């Protein structure tokens, strides 16, 4: 195991500082409210985990939302059966989604290329359809799984503190609403980022990158690649399970729509948008998409009218109508356009853009830095 270089440490510390200071520096962008910040953290973890599979090994899974959903369900069941404390729920969720990922990964990784994508997609869609129909006793179907006052919660009963009122998840007796919830999630994001950083730098990570660049050659040199890809698949499934559990911690309601293939597509978009294969990129992508999803979809015609009011009469009305198509209900249109432009012109995502600008600004600097040592300057609002 390679020890941490100074660059790695700087990256980790910088990342932690940026994350923890989010409630402050996101203030001017109107995004510093706990609910959105928690989502930033949760989808950041999801994307970092997805990147361990897609970014390092090149296997494009189209069914990762299944693990996210399974994590959510497992966490809510832990709240119902064991305790309202978040820690057992997280452990339970990670273990269950890990086992789930082991089974699906063992079968799916027998194929590669688009066959692998379709296999993961098929498994995820099966889970989604079953969660809606036959598995209703476990998943509570369309209503979604929620906490009730009459849940058994055996561990809590043993210690004799059955809480009165509507049950909410706690951490050692402390409620996890608002900014406490955010810092709880942020701690996990930094922890998972650290683990991902160590994986990327380790011999295991090098193996995964080798699989991405030429799996046939890896096989010819006598390496059995299957255990490595399976390990990467399970790790990234556990990341997704953790993210799903955090989703359940901050909002204890698990629904099957989290497992639909559009949700799997979303995490792919996040990773590509930020830059697959980089450490910071997927997190950035997740933040950008969640930010615009919340901010763009909240814009309406009166806000636009104020924004365009500097234009002459008549022209401003046209501007409002045209731009109105891209915000509010239509923000997906913006997402699609941005996404197409990114894939056409910047296949490396936002991180490649950052790198190009850095080399443009300081042409005499060292040769192009490797992806994981690029310093993080996340400005997702731009």
């Amino acid at each position, binding site marked *: 195991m390679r020890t941490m270089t100074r660059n790695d440490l700087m990256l980790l510390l910088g990342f932690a500082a940026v994350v923890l200071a989010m409630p402050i520096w996101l203030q001017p962008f109107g995004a510093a409210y706990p609910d959105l910040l928690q989502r930033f953290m949760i989808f950041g973890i999801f994307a970092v985990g997805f990147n361990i599979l897609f970014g390092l090994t090149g296997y494009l899974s189209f069914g990762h939302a299944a693990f996210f959903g399974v994590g959510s369900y497992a966490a809510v069941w832990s709240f119902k059966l064991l305790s309202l404390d978040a820690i057992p729920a997280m452990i339970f969720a990670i273990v269950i989604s890990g086992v789930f990922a082991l089974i699906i990964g063992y079968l799916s990784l027998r*194929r590669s290329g688009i066959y692998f994508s*379709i296999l993961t997609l*098929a498994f995820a*869609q*099966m889970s989604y359809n079953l969660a809606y129909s036959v*598995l209703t006793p476990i998943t509570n179907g369309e209503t979604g799984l929620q906490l009730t006052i009459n849940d058994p919660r055996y561990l809590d009963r043993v210690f004799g503190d059955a809480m009165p009122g509507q049950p909410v998840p706690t951490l050692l007796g402390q409620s996890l609403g608002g900014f406490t919830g955010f810092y709880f999630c942020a701690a996990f994001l930094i922890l998972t980022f650290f683990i991902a950083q160590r994986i990327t730098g380790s011999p295991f990570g090098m193996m995964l990158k080798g699989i991405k660049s030429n799996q046939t050659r890896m096989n010819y040199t006598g390496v059995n690649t299957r255990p490595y890809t399976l390990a990467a698949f399970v790790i990234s499934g556990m990341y997704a399970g953790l993210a799903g559990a955090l989703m359940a911690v901050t909002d204890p309601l698990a629904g099957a729509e989290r497992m639909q293939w559009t949700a799997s597509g979303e995490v792919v*978009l996040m990773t590509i948008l930020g830059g697959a294969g980089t450490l910071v990129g997927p997190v950035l992508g997740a933040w950008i998409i969640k930010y615009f999803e919340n901010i763009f979809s909240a814009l309406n015609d009166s806000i636009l009218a104020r924004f365009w009011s500097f234009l002459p009469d008549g022209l401003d009305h046209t501007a409002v109508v045209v731009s109105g198509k891209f915000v509010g209900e*239509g923000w997906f249109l913006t997402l699609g356009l941005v996404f197409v432009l990114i894939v056409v012109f910047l296949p490396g995502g936002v991180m490649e853009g950052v790198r190009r600008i850095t080399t443009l600004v300081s042409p005499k600097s060292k040769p192009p830095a490797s992806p994981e040592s690029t310093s993080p300057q996340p400005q997702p609002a731009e």
Partner: protein
Amino acid sequence: MFDVIFLQFLNGLDKGAAYALIALGLTLVFGTLGVVNFAHGALFMLGAFCAVLFRQLLTMETITIDPTQLSPWGAPLEVRAPLVQAWFGDFGAVLVNYSVPASIIITIPIMLLVGIGLERGIIKHFYKRPHAEQILVTFGLAIVAQELIKSFFGPNPIPQPMPSDLRGAADIGAFLGMQANVITYPIWRLVYFLFSFIIIGGVFAFLQFTTFGMVVRAGMADRETVGLLGINIDKRFTIMFGLAAVVAGLAGVMYTPLLPPNYHIGMDFLVLSFVVVVVGGMGSLPGAVAAGFLLGILQSFASMTQVKALIPGIDQVIIYLVAVVILLVLPRGLFGRRGVMEA
């Protein structure tokens, strides 16, 4: 027992026909251009909305207020005159009645333009890029197409009536010399099945019996050599992309009376069609058609009450289950060739 099985078989045909048509177009694009086109479902959806647009054009009215007449509640009477009456006279009523099949007239040129524009505008830059990037850019295009349709036609499904002569059910059992009124089948579904049969047959005949088709097949087998022979294979492949778009669009047009189109109808079909293509084997045209009908019919059998009682939930997962089993047992699908898309 036989008639129950036969009925389920028939029920599977129309869905299978839709799967087969979409999968056929997907495979055409993949076989010629080597591009994994996630926007293909969006082309199906655009076709369906061609039918919606055509009907909206036909039912446009001019509203004039006639001050000499009064409506029952005393206001000036609005006189609505359908424009189509003014243009076509009595033929207009027939045209409105047959708006769905008639919209094929506008669908073919529109889809041809959309397909060729898409290929020349964006997809041609992606031939040399990895498959993952092709998937992503076409996925983005699908989102854009979907949202554009949503902003023009709204988020709700828009039902399209089928021609009045083709409503109701045909007594197929009696036709085949069995007991009357046991096996009845909606006429439109029969029409859809025959229609898909003609389209699929047409595409195969086009590829098999024309010089153009021969060149395209040669290009699918060995693009470089055909190019070296002095043939502009790119141009022909572009036309094939347009043709695939037309096939998807026509499949969408004729499906509108069976399922009112909304903006995400394409995505719903796309996921299934990809499963169909992969089960059939990437790049194999007969495989796509066979797998389309196979999965449609299996889905229909799985939704029988007796089967559902035996294996609960099977109707929800059957397609994916079959896909998983086939891919694990036959790595390249039913008719796939070696070495396609495994990198």
